[in-house]
């Protein structure tokens, strides 16, 4: 099955390209201290708001810091947020969805009501309220985004469990005396993971965009730590004189989000599944 998946995936040039792009981005952010041309925190009063030039390929900001270097370090934040926030959401969603789908009845009703309630919040309002109250740190942001975005996975996993639990292999496992935990995690879960993988990949862009928006509003990643979102705040403040401060961080967000979306689509097509 993996071979079939791989051969189908490799045929999809856009998805492959996206995977390569994201992989390079990971490498770049891991080796950021060695790859960035300047120290991203170093203030240089002689190079304030310089337009792109050979010495500063993407220009400098209002404190004379090199934009390219800050962009490279900012990649760390975006990639980390994508993974951790979606990881949290996926774990919560998978467990709740499995319990709801497997046991049904009152447990199912309570969990799904809770999902309905959470879906009714304008989620950005809720995230904003919580983040603003907590100490603004990257970990808090990731946890809060994760805690407010698990509902889709729950529905997905529940639907998978509803149909899988009726299958013969589950009956066989039960006849052999397997415990509920064993049936859920050993027998059903592996068969339900494919759509979860797709929805996780497609969920990462949302988390990245949310972090960027929070940092842009000034309640996300705090200066001087560079994130693509808070770099855009500098762009907004210097909108009339420094176009490069707005253009490049946004472009970085766009390309990363685009790559994740195309990758998710590619995996989805290669696995031949559809999720709404």
């Amino acid at each position, binding site marked *: 099955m993996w071979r079939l998946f791989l051969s189908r995936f490799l045929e999809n040039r856009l998805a492959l390209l996206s995977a390569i792009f994201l992989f390079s981005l990971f490498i770049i952010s891991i080796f950021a201290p060695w790859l960035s041309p300047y120290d991203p925190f170093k203030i240089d009063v002689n190079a304030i708001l310089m337009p792109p030039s050979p010495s500063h390929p993407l220009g400098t900001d209002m404190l004379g810091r090199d934009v390219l270097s800050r962009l490279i370090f900012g990649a760390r934040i975006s990639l980390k947020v994508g993974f951790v926030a979606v990881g949290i959401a996926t774990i919560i969603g998978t467990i709740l969805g499995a319990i709801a789908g497997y046991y049904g009845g009152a447990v199912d009703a309570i969990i799904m009501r809770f999902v309905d309630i959470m879906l009714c919040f304008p989620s950005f309002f809720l995230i904003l309220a919580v983040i603003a109250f907590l100490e603004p740190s990257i970990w808090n942001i990731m946890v809060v985004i994760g805690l407010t975005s698990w509902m889709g996975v729950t529905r997905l996993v529940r639907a998978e469990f509803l149909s899988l639990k009726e299958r013969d292999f589950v009956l066989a496992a039960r006849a052999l005396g397997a415990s509920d935990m064993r049936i859920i995690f050993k027998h059903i879960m592996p068969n339900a993971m494919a759509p979860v993988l797709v929805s996780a990949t497609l969920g990462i862009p949302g988390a990245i965009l949310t972090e960027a928006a929070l940092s842009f509003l000034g309640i996300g990643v705090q200066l001087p730590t560079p994130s693509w979102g808070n770099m855009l705040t500098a762009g907004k403040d210097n909108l009339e004189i420094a176009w490069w401060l707005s253009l490049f961080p946004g472009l970085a967000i*766009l390309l990363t989000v685009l790559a994740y979306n195309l990758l998710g689509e590619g995996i989805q097509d290669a696995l031949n599944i559809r999720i709404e």
Partner: protein
Amino acid sequence: MIPLLLGITIISFAVIHLAPGSPAEMATLLNPKTSPDLQLKLRKLYGLDKPLYIQYWLWLKRLSHLDFGISFSPDRRPVLEKIAERIPITLTINVLSMFLILIVAIPLGVVSAVHHKSIFDRISTIFVFIGYATPGFWLALLLMMLFGIKLGWLPLSGLKSLDHASLSPLQKILDYSKHLILPVFVSAFGGLAGLSRYVRANMLEVIKQDYILTARAKGLPERVVIYQHALKNALLPVITILGLSVPGLIGGSVIFESIFAIPGMGQLFYASVMARDYPVIMGCLVIGAVLTLLGNLIADIGYALADPRIRVG
């Protein structure tokens, strides 16, 4: 719907009141002359000295006759009044952007699907993917740079010009619309890409159905087959999607209203969060959730009206 709303209020109340940093601390933090005594008085004034469940009960009792309480901010105005003067602005922008999404996304999606794999389809697919990945607030910055600064065609922020009061009624409307163009376009942009993709996928699915084959076999002209038989069925789920997009639009208003300095509900919410103005935060969350529920309800009704299968089944 009522239990749902109750659940929403319980979660909001718990999250907001349990989070660190109380309004009493905030108000006294920067003032060197404060004493523990003053903090205590403030807590009493705000009603924060009672146990949480009693605070919630009192809040709920007041809510039952639509009293959202009084703002903690120095103006001490009723929350409902504060929200009521902001909400029309946010709703206008959201309704206009929803309208824009509909009139652009549906034709785009339909034409792409009908001419599947044509050049138009490919270009619009690329556009949709890029649009889907574009951070709205970044697009806002770029457009402000282009139309506001470089070309000077559109105002950068606010809802009206400084000389607004002296304008004739017609000019006033023109002034408002000039200020609204960028915010409406930007807040519509993300949804536009999403919806047109959705319409395209639906249309492709519908065209494969047997009843389309039947219509073609009857010898109906292609135009009738596509725009009467297929289109109706492909557009049905769009009603639901529109209902579901309400929370996103309301949440997004925080960002756009802050960029364009528009005095709407999003801006009020942001300011209240920063000031720990609990009653206003609770009011905004509850009203946001009610709007979402209303959106879903309208979508359900619309769906039932449009699709006889729902009514009968």
